[in-house]
């Protein structure tokens, strides 16, 4: 029987939900996305950089806890009340997350390539160098 599967037969009272839990943590916002969120100025988020609940255009979303009023950006979590959020901000996991986000940019594909003995990407010479300045030689 594989990890996270439900045990069957005798003594199968304990239901293992490892796989479900892992899936849930994976579906949360990834660290590089959050890092980008944190870099943004406060209150300005489109749907790409932060959950829609925090955008300016869609202030309240009925599907979110407390209509998305209480959002912890570093942990990308919604809370039901102000009280719950302040309690969360005292926790170790939150503090650790904040500490991580103060550090360097999280690992990216570019980093992977550099670590794999590759140089910086080569985009070639510019196809259209500044057109606005006319070449004097051509005129004469």
């Amino acid at each position, binding site marked *: 029987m594989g990890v996270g599967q439900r045990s069957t037969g005798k003594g199968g009272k304990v239901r293992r939900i490892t796989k479900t839990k*892992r899936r849930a*943590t*994976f579906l949360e916002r*990834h*660290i590089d*996305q959050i890092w980008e969120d944190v870099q943004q100025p406060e209150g300005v988020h489109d749907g*790409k950089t932060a959950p829609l609940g925090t955008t300016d255009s869609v202030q309240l979303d009925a599907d979110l806890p407390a209509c998305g009023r209480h959002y912890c950006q570093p942990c990308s979590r919604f809370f039901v009340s102000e009280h719950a959020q302040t309690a969360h901000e005292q926790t170790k996991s939150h503090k650790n997350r904040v500490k991580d986000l103060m550090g360097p940019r*999280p*690992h990216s*594909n570019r*980093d*992977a*390539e*550099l*670590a*794999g*003995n*590759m*140089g*910086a*990407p*080569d*985009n*070639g*010479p510019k196809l259209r160098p500044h057109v606005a300045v006319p070449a004097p030689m051509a005129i004469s």
Partner: protein
Amino acid sequence: MRLEKCWFCSSTVYPGHGITFVRNDATIFKFCRSKCHKNFKMKRNPRKVKWTKASRKLAGKELVKDATFDMERRRNRPEKYDREVMHKTVKAMQKIDEIRQKRADRLWEKRMANAKQQQTAADKRQLEREIHLIKAPSMEPEAVSEQEPMQEEKVVQQQDEKLAQKQKKKLRIPVERPRQKLQRMQE
């Protein structure tokens, strides 16, 4: 044809191998094998996993920022085919690989220069700390007062007995004795 690098371990992903994951914000992640994909799904940080290239470079175990790395790049503007250039490139690849190998060897030698001293020092420290494991207490020059260890031993014995009793209690299985069983049968 492109040879990609694995997002997690930075090894080369050849065509037809590995898995590609596209996140809902259109970011592409390539993985060389299921091991790397699983580690990604667990949201592990490649910089903190010791066997990845990223962490080895951070720890100073491999060459970082070397001029030989400029050969292999992600070329977003492909070169036009030219027989001459192709011929030269293949030659250059071999030469550059040689140079890189030499540099890597030199780095390894430099790292290993102090390794023996460090190992001996660590061994000495361990010997001092754990000498009691190989040396009998009677061999020690000054025996500590004898009564205290005796008391400790007694306490340990008592604890052991208690534990044994507990385990016995746990292990007891309710079984009908043969006489009781016979009586019940007769009734």
